[in-house]
C-alpha cells in the first residue's frame, strides 16, 4: 500500500506557472510557422514569448469559480427586477431608447469580441497571452448573454428590440458599430489586440461603458446597472491585458513601434467615430443626465488618456494626431448626431424627439460656445413645426463616409457651418470621406475598404428589400420595403417618441402602479 503524503498547497505564483505556462509544449514534428500561421505577416517581430508578464496570474479553475459567483448574484437581481416590474421605475419612457440603442448597437459587438479573442487566442504561440485571450473570449460571450437576459424583460413591454441581432446586421446606422468590429476581426492578431484590446478596451472603454452604466443608474434602470457592475471586474482585467499587450509588443523590437503607432492612430479615430452614438445618448437620450459628452471626453480622454500617452512616450508612442480634431469637435458632435437621428426617425429602431425648454437650457450651459449659436435655432424650428403637425422626417438617403460609414454630417474642423468633404480616386472610382482621418485609413488599405457594405448604396443596388420584392412596380415605396427587410414595423418601432406606443403604454402602466384607478 502506498503511503499518502500530504502535499504542500501551491502558492499563487507556482500555481500559475504549473497551470498556465506549464500547459504549453514544444512541437516536435510540426513546424511552429504551420501551427501559428498568422504570426509573421503583419510585420510584428516577437523574439521571446516568455517575456510576457501576466499581472493577474489567474488560472482557469479559479476563473470559473469566480465568474460563477458573479453570475449567481447577477441573476438573482435580474429575477427580482423582472418580478417587481422594474421597467416601470425608469425616469421616463424616453430612457428606453437608450436600452434599444445598447442592445442593437453594442451587445452584438460583445459577441463579435468573443469571436475575435477566440481567434487570436488560438494564434498566439505564447501560453500567457493565449490563456488571457481565452478568458476574455469567455467574458465577452458572457457579456453578450447577460446583456440579452437583462434587457429581454424590456422587450416584453416595449418596441424596437424584438430582433436586435437581425437589425444589427442590416439597419443603416448599425453598420457603423458593425463595420468597426468587422474591420478589427478581419485584421491580423496583433492589429486586433491593438484595436480592441488596447484602443477600445483601454483608451475608450470609459467613454462607452461608464456612460451607459451610470446612465442606467441615474435613470432607475436596475437591470442594465447590475449587468454593468457584474462586468466591471472583467473590464479591469481586459484593460490590463490591453496595456500589457502593447507594452510587450513595443519592447520586443524597435521595428514594431511605427506599426503599432499607425494602428493606435487608426483605432483611436475609428473608436471615436463609433462613440458618436454615445455622445448623443449622453446629451439627448438620458432623461436624467450624468455629465455632458464634452465633460466626459475631457475627463476620460484628455486627462486620463493624456497621462497614458505620456507614460507610453518611453516606448516611442505618441498621442494620436486625431486628438486635435476631436478636441475641435467636442462642442458639436452630440448635436450633429442627434440632428441626424431626428432627420431619419422614420428609418430607425428607436424614437427621437426634440429637447424641452429645460433640456435646451442644460445644453446651452454645457455648450456655451456652440449650442445657442448653431443648434438651438434648428431645434426650436423643428419643435415648432412638430407642434404644428409638420414634424420633419427626412426621407432621402444620405451620402456616407466610405470608412466609418456615418452619413457625411461632420463639419470642417474649426467651421461648424460647412460639411467636411474629402475624396480619393482609386482604380477609376471615387470614394468619399467625412474627415482626413477616415481618408487616411482608406488610403493605407484601399483594398479592404472598397468592399465596404454601405447601407445607402446597398439599398440603391436593390439588396435591402425582402426577397421577391419588385422595385419597378408602380407606386413602389422603398422605405416600406427597407423597413420590412429590417423587420421593423412602420408607426410602431420608428417615428417620433411623442406619438409612440411606448410613451402611451408606459404612462398607462405607471399610472396603474402608482394611482388608484
Amino acid at each position, binding site marked *: 500500500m502506498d503511503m499518502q503524503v500530504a502535499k504542500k498547497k501551491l502558492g499563487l505564483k507556482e500555481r500559475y506557472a504549473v497551470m498556465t505556462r506549464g500547459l504549453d509544449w514544444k512541437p516536435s514534428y510540426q513546424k511552429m510557422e504551420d501551427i501559428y*500561421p*498568422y504570426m509573421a*505577416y*503583419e*510585420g510584428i517581430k516577437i523574439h521571446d514569448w516568455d517575456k510576457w508578464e501576466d499581472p493577474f496570474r489567474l488560472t482557469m479553475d479559479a476563473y470559473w469559480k469566480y465568474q460563477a459567483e458573479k453570475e449567481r448574484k447577477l441573476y438573482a437581481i435580474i429575477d427580482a427586477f423582472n418580478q417587481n416590474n422594474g421597467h416601470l421605475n425608469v425616469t421616463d419612457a424616453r430612457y428606453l431608447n437608450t436600452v434599444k440603442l445598447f442592445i442593437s448597437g453594442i451587445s452584438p459587438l460583445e459577441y463579435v469580441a468573443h469571436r475575435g479573442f477566440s481567434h487570436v487566442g488560438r494564434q498566439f504561440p505564447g501560453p500567457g497571452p493565449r490563456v488571457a485571450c481565452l478568458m476574455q473570449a469567455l467574458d465577452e460571450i458572457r457579456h453578450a448573454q447577460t446583456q440579452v437576459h437583462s434587457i429581454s424583460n424590456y422587450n416584453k413591454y416595449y418596441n424596437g428590440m424584438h430582433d436586435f441581432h437581425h437589425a444589427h446586421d442590416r439597419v443603416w446606422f448599425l453598420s457603423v458599430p458593425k463595420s468597426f468590429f468587422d474591420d478589427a476581426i478581419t*485584421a*491580423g492578431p496583433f*492589429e486586433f489586440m491593438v484595436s480592441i484590446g488596447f484602443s477600445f478596451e483601454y483608451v475608450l472603454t470609459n467613454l462607452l461603458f461608464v456612460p451607459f452604466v451610470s446612465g442606467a443608474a441615474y435613470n432607475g434602470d436596475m437591470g442594465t446597472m447590475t449587468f454593468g457592475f457584474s462586468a466591471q471586474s472583467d473590464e479591469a482585467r481586459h484593460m490590463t491585458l490591453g496595456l500589457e499587450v502593447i507594452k510587450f509588443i513595443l519592447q520586443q523590437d524597435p521595428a514594431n513601434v511605427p506599426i503599432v503607432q499607425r494602428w493606435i492612430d487608426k483605432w483611436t479615430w475609428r473608436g471615436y467615430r463609433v462613440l458618436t452614438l454615445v455622445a448623443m445618448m449622453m446629451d439627448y437620450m438620458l432623461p436624467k443626465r450624468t455629465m455632458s459628452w464634452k465633460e466626459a471626453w475631457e475627463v476620460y480622454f484628455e486627462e486620463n488618456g493624456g497621462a497614458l500617452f505620456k507614460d507610453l512616450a518611453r516606448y516611442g508612442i505618441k498621442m494620436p494626431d486625431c486628438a486635435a480634431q476631436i478636441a475641435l469637435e467636442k462642442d458639436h458632435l452630440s448635436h*450633429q448626431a442627434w*440632428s*441626424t437621428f431626428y*432627420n*431619419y426617425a422614420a428609418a430607425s429602431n428607436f424614437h427621437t424627439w426634440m429637447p424641452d425648454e429645460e433640456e435646451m437650457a442644460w445644453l446651452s450651459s454645457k455648450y456655451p460656445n456652440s449650442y445657442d*449659436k*448653431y*443648434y*438651438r*435655432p*434648428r431645434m426650436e*424650428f*423643428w419643435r415648432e413645426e412638430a407642434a404644428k403637425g409638420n414634424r*420633419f422626417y*427626412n426621407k*432621402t*438617403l*444620405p*451620402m*456616407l463616409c466610405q470608412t466609418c460609414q456615418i*452619413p*457625411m*454630417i461632420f*463639419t470642417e474642423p474649426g467651421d*461648424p*457651418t*460647412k*460639411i467636411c*468633404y474629402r*475624396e480619393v480616386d482609386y*482604380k477609376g*472610382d*471615387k*470614394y*468619399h470621406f467625412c474627415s482626413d482621418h477616415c481618408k487616411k485609413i482608406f*488610403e*493605407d*488599405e*484601399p*483594398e*479592404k475598404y*472598397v*468592399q*465596404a*457594405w*454601405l447601407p*445607402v*448604396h*446597398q439599398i*440603391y*443596388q*436593390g439588396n435591402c428589400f425582402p426577397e421577391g420584392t419588385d422595385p419597378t412596380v408602380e407606386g413602389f415605396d422603398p422605405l416600406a420595403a427597407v423597413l420590412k427587410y429590417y423587420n421593423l414595423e412602420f408607426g410602431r418601432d420608428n417615428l417620433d417618441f411623442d406619438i409612440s406606443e411606448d410613451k402611451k403604454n408606459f404612462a398607462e402602466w405607471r399610472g396603474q402602479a402608482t394611482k388608484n384607478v
Partner: protein
Amino acid sequence: MAVAAVKTYEFPPADTVDKFHGAQLLYIGWEDHLLFCAPFAFPFPPTMRFGDILAGVLPGVFGYHPDFAKIDWAKAEWFKSGQPWQPDADKSLAENGLKHKDVIRFRTPGLTGIKGSCS
C-alpha cells in the same frame, strides 16, 4: 501602402456603376443648410436632364426648408468636388460631365438657414 495579407488580396469593389441597374450615383449638398444633416445620395440615369433634377427632385428633398422657396436659381453657385462648376440645365448628367459617385453642392447667396445659423 498595401493591405497586410497572408496571400493575394484582391476583391471587387462593392459599388461600381454596373451594380446600379443603369443608374449612377450623384451626391448633392446644399451649403449653409444643415437642417438637412448630410448631403444626399441619388441613383440617376446618366441621360437624365440636369434641369429635371432642379425642377423635379430637389423640391421634394429640400422643400421643407423655408429658404427653399426663396432660391433664385440664376444666382446659385455650384461646386463639383469642391471646385466652382457650371451646370447646363438643358444637358444630361453625362453631358454635364457628371460621373458615377460625383459630388456636387450649391450655395444660395443671401440664404443662410434658420435665423442665420446655417441650419
